[in-house]
């Protein structure tokens, strides 16, 4: 593994570059195909509303995949991630238009751990609401 960030160069509170990720209905169809998750709540508005959702929602695992990019892009080596966990607190609602929804992700160092690893605490919001809770990644630095 070859992380481009050095353990000695970060402190608790150091912020990672924030990112925003767009998601449209087309994104969800593509993710459904690639992941094999064809649950209709992610592409069928009628079905989503029948089960009590406001509209079609993004796959939680899609949001989880986007959020960790703040970590993997920062560290340079995606294989440096040693732990990653999230709680799905609120769905990302994706309207049927050109813009879709936006997921805003920021991260900062929550703790310096043993063996050149750090815990990154991530925050993910969409439409001003938190969509992930307890979103944390442990990553090994150089």
């Amino acid at each position: 593994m070859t992380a481009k960030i050095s353990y000695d160069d970060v402190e608790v509170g150091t912020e990672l570059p924030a990112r925003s990720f767009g998601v449209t209905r087309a994104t969800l169809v593509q993710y459904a195909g690639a992941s094999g998750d064809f649950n209709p709540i992610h592409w069928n508005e009628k079905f989503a509303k029948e089960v009590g959702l406001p509209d079609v929602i993004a796959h939680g695992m899609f949001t989880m995949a986007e959020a960790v990019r703040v970590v993997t892009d920062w560290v340079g080596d995606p294989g440096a991630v040693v732990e990653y966990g999230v709680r799905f607190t609120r769905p990302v609602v994706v309207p049927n238009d050109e813009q879709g929804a936006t997921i805003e992700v920021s991260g900062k160092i929550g703790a310096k751990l043993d063996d050149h690893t750090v815990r990154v605490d991530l925050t993910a919001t969409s439409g001003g609401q938190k969509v992930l809770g307890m979103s944390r990644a442990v990553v090994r630095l150089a």
Partner: protein
Amino acid sequence: MALDQSFVGRTYPPTDPYEVGREKIREFAEAVGDTHPAYIDPEAAKALGYSDVIAPPTFVFSITFKAAGQVVRDPQLGLDYSRVVHGDQKFAYRRPVRAGDRLTVTSTIEAIKSMAGNDIVDVRGEVHDEAGEHVVTAWTKLVARAAEEG
């Protein structure tokens, strides 16, 4: 209806091997809009010390969730799959998943809880490669929402 607590600790048989393909990793990486070179270019992956392209961190969920289907659809457990939503997800990696891996998953029910009419099941999936080496562990919390009144 509360689920049977005696299922806690139950381990299901390992799945048949899933062979990780380069093009499947590429397809997944493109679907999440992340074309990091280590996911699509074997030379870039080698430069980082990997024998072939590696998968994005959440790629393995497709494999472990399919394995967790044994639990979700176990008629003896009786979870109402039509009401299941994903509560939490966590991974602990020994190494990244890479193209050419032949992965098996062994699923274990770690906990069963009932809260406010919701049935909550925690499933741990241990992922091993063809040599029997541990690659990653996935913890998935499934919540079967309480049925509506009437």
